[in-house]
């Protein structure tokens, strides 16, 4: 492993040095110039060179060359993005927790995932399963890290991932089929039609797999068979040169089988999970004049996951879960060019969110109002300052104001500096407030959201002899406060000779009032009763380097590295001031832990590295990609009860994933692609169940473009 890293590192170095002599012409599909238009930072179109908030772009060409199908495939190859595996129960796809995404070491519930600027819903346990999203309809992905934009919501503390779908332009039709290992089959068709006033785009996809098995010693498959459908329909109508309506609709249906061996060596429980989710998103844009434009956005979205498992022998119901979430929002954003120096944005909206699940006593809802202002100032030619304020009012919590500030200074055409500061907060989610769950299986614990928890009820149960002891923590349960964060980013970008660009960004995030569960009482049988409290304080800090180098017209090298340190501040204090013990071996003797033994928050790799080579020859039609993705070991378990990972067995091992593709364009219409993923066949059934062993695929794409207007 060490050798591989050294090799990659020296290759990096080599590239950086070589670039001095290069005089190559740039292929814009690979190399993102400062003129690339981005939307995420300001929620209006801006040139990449003119945004104060560093934005990374994953272009469609890169997605296609990589042969990626689902959102998690492509995101996990990007610098500093850590996809957490499914945890505990359930299998991938329909799994309870799925693949969540961390940015700058902040947990998945602090990352906002947007589809064309609107939030996606359907998080379970705070985690959004990214494999729900097909990416055949994506034009590009913009990634903004840090809490620097006030336009999207204060919970976007780790950053924003904005998935931008195909634009409404041209007349074309495409179709494709792909098949590979585990009978993983993907079929799609998409098309565009643009008229004088109206335009339409559609995308339909079916994705299925027979599943796979990573651990032959267990009767269960690691991934059980599934199939899913995605439908995307977008249309626009121009009422006048000044007024336009775009309606974005997305529908997703998934069917996931699940089979388990419970108290048995053979499969004895089985059933299926179904996911249904849809989004309807009409946006009306009106330009009042050259200086004032306004958008009115509606969002109706609904997510439902049901799972029923039955005993295979007597057909009796073993488990049933029904989770339903609704998210309805109306929002206005108005942009005003005040003068040549200032662009002012203001907006506000209303959101209604509902959740109904078998794990809550009843249907719950929350209403939220928000307003934001943001001003972009171009006072001096080389300086841009964005300042913003966001006001959030939640029916369950006090109002909050979150400030943001971002500064961009262009030293010259080649060197740019940027710094940003932002404060954000995340209101307690429904689960932390309303969960009311008694596990009747072996463990027999129970867990209550803070609003469901009642000390009086516990005392009553204690009198009845059901509760053995009420712990001191029970008396600290009060109304949950939002989690509060502050983030600071500082970085620079250097572009040399047009074909080498390096982005460096340092970051530090401090989060307080982190919500976690705590045992509040002991049942008569010894098991615990849990509830949620604001308890932890944590930080994440580190830096990220991205290098994009194009030595030849057809060839591009992308490399990235993130160094990350994280800590629970309270654990550090405990280790310093109290006696905290740990073991060096499973079943070994305990010894006193020191600060050095503390490895930081679980599920965070200290080092993440990627190197991605892309070749694309327009003349011959040949293209290929070779991608290396490395992440160092990360803590997953706490086997010695001290709250952190310190012994080898508490870590998931380091992993190097190698993926490759080759493709050939035949005439204008056909493209044939073959690929191998996970070439080194690195697997870990327990901690990375989402990563199958080495697997292959073949794909054919057909595109027909009508050039007549």
């Amino acid at each position: 492993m060490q050798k591989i890293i050294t090799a990659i590192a020296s290759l990096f170095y080599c590239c950086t040095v070589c670039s001095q002599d290069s005089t190559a012409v740039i292929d814009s599909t690979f190399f993102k110039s400062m003129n690339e238009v981005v939307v995420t930072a300001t929620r209006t179109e801006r040139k990449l060179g003119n945004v104060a908030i560093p934005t990374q772009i994953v272009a469609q060409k890169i997605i296609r060359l990589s042969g990626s199908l689902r959102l998690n495939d492509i995101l996990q190859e990007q610098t500093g993005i850590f996809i957490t595996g499914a945890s505990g129960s359930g299998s991938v796809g329909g799994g309870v927790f799925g693949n969540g995404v961390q940015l700058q070491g902040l947990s998945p519930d602090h990352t906002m995932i947007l589809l064309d600027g609107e939030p996606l819903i359907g998080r379970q346990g705070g985690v959004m399963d990214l494999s729900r999203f097909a990416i055949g309809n994506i034009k590009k992905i913009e990634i903004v890290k840090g809490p620097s934009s006030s336009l999207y919501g204060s919970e976007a503390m780790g950053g924003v991932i904005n998935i931008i779908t195909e634009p409404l332009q041209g007349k074309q039709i495409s179709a494709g089929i792909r098949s590979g290992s585990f009978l993983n089959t993907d079929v799609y068709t998409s098309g565009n039609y643009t008229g004088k006033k109206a335009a339409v785009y559609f995308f339909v996809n079916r994705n299925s797999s027979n599943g796979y098995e990573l651990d032959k010693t267990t009767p269960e498959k690691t991934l059980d068979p599934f199939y899913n459908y995605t439908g995307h329909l977008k249309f626009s109508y121009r009422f006048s040169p000044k007024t336009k309506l775009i309606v974005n609709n997305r529908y997703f249906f998934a069917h996931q089988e699940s089979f388990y061996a419970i108290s048995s060596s053979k499969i004895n429980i089985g059933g299926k999970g179904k996911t249904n989710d849809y989004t309807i998103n009409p946006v009306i844009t009106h330009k009042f004049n050259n200086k004032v434009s306004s958008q009115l956005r509606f969002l109706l979205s609904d997510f439902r996951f049901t799972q029923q498992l039955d005993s295979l022998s007597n057909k009796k119901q073993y488990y049933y879960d029904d989770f339903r979430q609704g998210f309805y929002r109306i929002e206005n954003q108005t942009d005003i060019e005040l003068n040549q120096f200032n662009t002012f944005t203001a907006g506000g909206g209303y959101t209604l969110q509902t959740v109904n699940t078998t794990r809550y006593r009843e249907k719950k809802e929350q209403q939220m109002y928000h307003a934001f202002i943001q001003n972009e100032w171009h006072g001096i030619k080389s300086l841009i300052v964005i300042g913003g304020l966001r006001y959030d009012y939640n029916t369950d919590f006090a109002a909050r104001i979150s400030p943001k500030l971002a500064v961009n200074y262009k030293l010259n055409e080649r060197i740019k500096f940027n710094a940003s500061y932002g404060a954000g907060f995340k209101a307690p989610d429904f689960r932390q407030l309303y969960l009311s769950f008694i596990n009747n299986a072996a463990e027999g614990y129970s867990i209550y959201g803070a609003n469901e928890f009642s000390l009086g009820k516990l005392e009553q149960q204690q009198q009845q002899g059901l509760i053995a002891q009420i712990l001191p923590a029970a008396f600290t349960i009060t109304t949950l406060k939002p989690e509060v964060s502050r983030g600071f980013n500082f970085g620079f970008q250097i572009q040399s000779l047009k074909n080498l660009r390096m982005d460096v960004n340092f970051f530090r995030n401090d989060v307080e009032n982190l919500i976690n569960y705590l045992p509040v009482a002991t049942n008569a049988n010894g098991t615990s009763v849990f509830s949620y409290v604001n308890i932890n304080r944590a930080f994440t800090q580190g830096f990220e380097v991205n290098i994009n180098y194009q030595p030849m017209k057809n060839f591009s090298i992308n490399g990235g590295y993130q160094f990350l340190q994280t800590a629970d501040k309270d654990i550090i204090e405990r280790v310093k001031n109290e006696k905290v013990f740990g073991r060096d071996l499973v079943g070994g003797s305990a010894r006193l832990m020191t600060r050095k033994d503390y490895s930081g928050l679980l599920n965070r790799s200290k080092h993440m590295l990627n190197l991605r080579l892309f070749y694309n020859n327009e003349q011959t039609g040949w293209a290929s990609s070779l991608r290396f993705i490395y992440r160092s070991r990360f803590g997953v378990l706490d086997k010695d009860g001290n709250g952190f990972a310190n012994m080898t067995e508490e870590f998931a091992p380091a992993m190097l994933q190698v993926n490759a593709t080759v493709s050939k364009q035949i005439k204008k219409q056909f493209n044939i692609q073959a690929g191998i993923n996970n070439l080194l066949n690195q697997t870990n059934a327990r901690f990375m169940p989402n990563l199958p062993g080495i697997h292959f695929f073949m794909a054919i794409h057909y595109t027909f473009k009508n050039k007549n207007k």
Partner: protein
Amino acid sequence: MKYTVLVIAAIMILAISCKKEDKPTPATVATIDFLVNGSATQGNYNFFSFINGSTVAASDSNSTKWDFAMRFETFIINSNASGPGNAGVQVLNQTFDGVTTAPEAGYKYDTAVAQKAIKGTDWYIYNPTTRSFSPIAGKTFVFRTATNKYAKLEVLSADPADDNGNLVVPPTRPTKIKYKIRFAYQASGSKNFN
């Protein structure tokens, strides 16, 4: 890693050699696997005796042949509400080796079915997300046994297992918990473990 093992071995040898010099009646030290019913609510407890250093049949539960018993992660102690013996227990925040003598006082009993001497939160952490529970390192149980002798015990590991004691990982549900425990038993009635 090798180095760590060597160091641990050296410490152990040192500990053993010290013991020989100091005490005419050394405590017996052993590390064993203890397979326990994995259900928190149903089925028998598994009984343990320090004298034999092994399990005791459930049919002897109404005797002083056992000192403590476990089911899932619940301890019961042979005295008061749980048995005819005179056992007592306390959990100290010290390493196993760090406890050289049993305290004079402070021993607790199961005073009622719902009032056990040992609370789960005294010695382990349960994580409902990963459904795992971890014995907290540096927690040493000091027992007065059913027959008024002294013993100290450390839970080294706790793993979900099947009926045969083979470890299982999620999503397979365990039926047993496999404990690895280390204990020292002072048969002389002295409180000194060295």
